[in-house]
């Protein structure tokens, strides 16, 4: 007998529809599988057989053929275990007829339990958007179901699943809703603690210049490079930057949830997603950073989507790894091509970098002597130029704050105040008709929004020659000054805005 079950797999970060066709005919017992299954899918034969028998069903006799369509799509997911098992049961006549309109995903354990899968969220989204009346997911993925919306039901084992799908989707009540998921989580202790105290900029005293730079960078999404001796607080600043950005929109939250779902980082309070902050170590490889693999998975840049990517010790990174950032930074997405398929991952992030002033870290430090030779310094400077600096609009030098400077009664900016400034600047820009970030302004937009008055032009001419700037650094300074003017709620760029922007140029 023939059976057809709707399911989905996750390809890259997209859900793709798959039909599981099962046919049982006469012949030697066994399961044959076609339709580009990966090794992971082939192995499910053993799981399915044990799971069915251990759930108390009869395993149909005869030659079982399973076809996964579309045949051209490579399938690499254990989430097809459950639909295949159900398909075998239906076509073997063990459970009667399955009603139409169900989409099923889930991995099987040998004892018949249904286990969670990676990438459940994009699969659910696909099934919902493609007219599935009801969706069956593993209980472990219930939290993600709340984000997907629709008539979604979580099951713990095959029996629960079979009970549901013998009824039509409309007849079944008790779908997962956001409230139910939330309540259920609070009921059983709630997994990871929610609302742990985020570090605040208010804890950092005396780095007012750095805080100002972070505010500007976040307002215009300008790449920011911090140069300073070890221990001057670069990492502290970086860890707090995501907090300065505006709260995530619903769409951004969903995008972040999808990426986490695919990379298996979906925790139980996925609804509580904050702006991501990623700080990969400098030993990371290309695939780790931009994603890769024969079935491509997202890398750090995609995990940092809509958040902050912090590259500490930027000069220690492999040059090719940094070079690979060029395209995603420009296009805000990265596409991998594997075996005739294109996998596109989003990568729209705020880039933040930190470097020591020299290899030993103490060049220009008052207390410690720099032990680097001239050749060391030259090599280091060369590393700091080129592909890295193309990505950076702003540079600041940071110095350790002396204890005596900390004793004043000055209270510095807090994260909340900085975030309010950023939001005000973004709102002002929108009022002026600019909806993107200032770092993305193209030439035409720049001539419209960054036009300078006569005095300002004269000032920039003087600056251009005094600081021996290049056309590129000029453009960068202009973009940054546009953001500073936004923070000042000024439609025109004035000399003080330009002067401040120039202070963030890369200096010797």
């Amino acid at each position, binding site marked *: 007998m023939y059976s057809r079950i709707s399911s989905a797999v996750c390809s890259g970060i997209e859900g793709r529809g798959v039909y599981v066709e099962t046919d049982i005919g006469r012949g030697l017992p066994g399961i044959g599988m076609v339709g580009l299954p990966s090794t992971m899918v082939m192995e499910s034969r053993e799981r399915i057989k044990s799971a069915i028998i251990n759930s108390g069903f009869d395993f149909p006799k005869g030659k079982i053929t399973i076809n996964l369509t579309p045949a051209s799509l490579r399938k690499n997911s254990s989430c097809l275990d459950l639909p295949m098992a159900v398909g075998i049961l239906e076509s073997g006549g063990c459970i009667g007829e399955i009603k139409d309109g169900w989409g099923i995903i889930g991995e099987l354990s040998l004892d018949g339990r249904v286990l969670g899968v990676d990438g459940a969220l994009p699969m659910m989204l696909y099934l919902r958007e493609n007219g599935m009346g009801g969706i069956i997911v593993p209980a472990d993925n219930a939290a993600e179901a709340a984000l997907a919306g629709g008539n979604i039901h979580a099951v713990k084992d095959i029996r629960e699943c079979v009970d549901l799908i013998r009824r039509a989707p409309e007849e079944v009540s008790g779908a997962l809703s956001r409230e139910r998921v939330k309540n259920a989580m609070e009921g059983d202790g709630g997994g990871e603690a929610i609302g742990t105290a985020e570090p605040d900029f208010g804890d950092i005293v005396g780095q007012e210049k750095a805080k100002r730079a972070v505010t500007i960078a976040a307002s215009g999404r300008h790449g920011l490079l911090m140069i300073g001796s070890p221990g001057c607080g670069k990492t502290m600043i970086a860890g707090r930057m995501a907090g300065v950005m505006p709260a995530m929109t619903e769409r951004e939250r969903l995008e972040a949830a999808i990426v986490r779902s695919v990379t298996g980082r979906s925790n139980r309070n996925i609804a509580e997603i904050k702006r991501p902050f990623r700080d990969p170590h400098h030993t990371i490889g290309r695939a780790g950073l931009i994603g890769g693999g024969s079935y491509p998975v997202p890398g750090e840049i995609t995990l940092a989507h809509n958040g902050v990517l912090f590259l500490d010790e930027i000069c220690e990174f492999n040059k090719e790894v940094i070079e690979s950032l060029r395209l995603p930074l420009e296009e805000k997405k990265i596409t991998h091509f594997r075996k005739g398929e294109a996998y596109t991952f989003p990568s729209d992030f705020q880039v933040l970098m930190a470097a020591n002033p020299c290899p030993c870290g103490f*060049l220009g430090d008052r207390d410690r*002597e720099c032990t680097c030779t*001239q050749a060391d310094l030259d090599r280091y400077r060369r590393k700091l130029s080129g592909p890295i600096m193309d990505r950076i609009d702003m540079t600041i030098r*940071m110095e350790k704050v002396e204890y005596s*400077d900390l004793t004043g009664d000055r209270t510095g900016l807090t994260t909340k105040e900085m975030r309010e400034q950023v939001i005000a600047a973004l709102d002002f820009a929108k009022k002026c008709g600019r909806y993107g970030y200032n770092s993305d302004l193209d030439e035409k937009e720049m001539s419209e929004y960054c036009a300078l008055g006569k005095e300002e032009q004269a*000032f920039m001419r003087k*600056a251009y020659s005094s600081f021996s700037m290049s056309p590129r650094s000029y453009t960068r300074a202009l973009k940054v000054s546009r953001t500073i003017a936004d923070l000042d709620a000024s439609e025109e760029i004035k000399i003080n*805005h330009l*002067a401040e922007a120039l*202070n963030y140029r890369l200096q010797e």
Partner: protein
Amino acid sequence: MDKISVIDNSSAEFPDKLRNIPDPPKQLYCMGDTSLLHEKSVGVVGARKATLYGKNVAIMVGRRLAESGIPVVSGFAMGVDSFSHEGALEAEGKLIGVLGFGMDMMRYQGNYALMKKCIESGGLIVSEYPPEMHASRATFPQRNRIISGISSALVVVEAGMNSGSLITAKCAADQGRTVYAVPGNINSSTSMGTNLLIRDGAIPMVIIDDLIRDIGMEICNPNTGGFKLDADEEKIFESVRTRSGATSEEIISDTGLSASLVSSLITVMEIKGIVESYAGRIYAGMR
């Protein structure tokens, strides 16, 4: 670049001051204006890894000498040598560079751009080595005797304990040239050599014009324009001066001004040349 001419030890073009040193070169390969060899000139040498102090003093000395029309002799090394030449070029002065290798090797040097500028601005480059000669460990100390030999006086700006500049100073002393040394902090490793030179009898270089008078040249004063500071700029300048080099954070905490205002004022003051930033600190400018 220009053609290379050869001046033999015995020709009239060969400067007497160089012929009379203990171990004169047999010939000089020259590129540029050879008449500079007969003018009174001053050698300025010092550490490759100069501090901002050394850099500023070297530029000051180079500029001041150039303003009085005195060619600056140096060895085209990184650091003080280059800075003194840059200072002289700023004031449109003439340079004399002495190479520690043959002239064909110039293009492989890190300082090739400066060498080109030297010729373009009417300066002179000399070497005792044939054009195809490579640099070696021995050639650099050897050329130091020519630097001091051409010069009427020698200024050592910054030198560590083992600096090659000390060899030049010794040559100069042996050749009967006056040696000036720029004093530095006694706990600064880059001023150790110059301070020792002073202990051993070199003249401490305190006022640059003294040196110009001593070699019998006249001092020329170019017009220097003053600058006015507003109240906030004055506060910032005060903070920079009292701390002798301040970070932005220190200025912000000293003056009580906002980070954005301090950043923009510093840029304006940098353009005016009132302050200068170097390795993360803001210093009082030279002008």
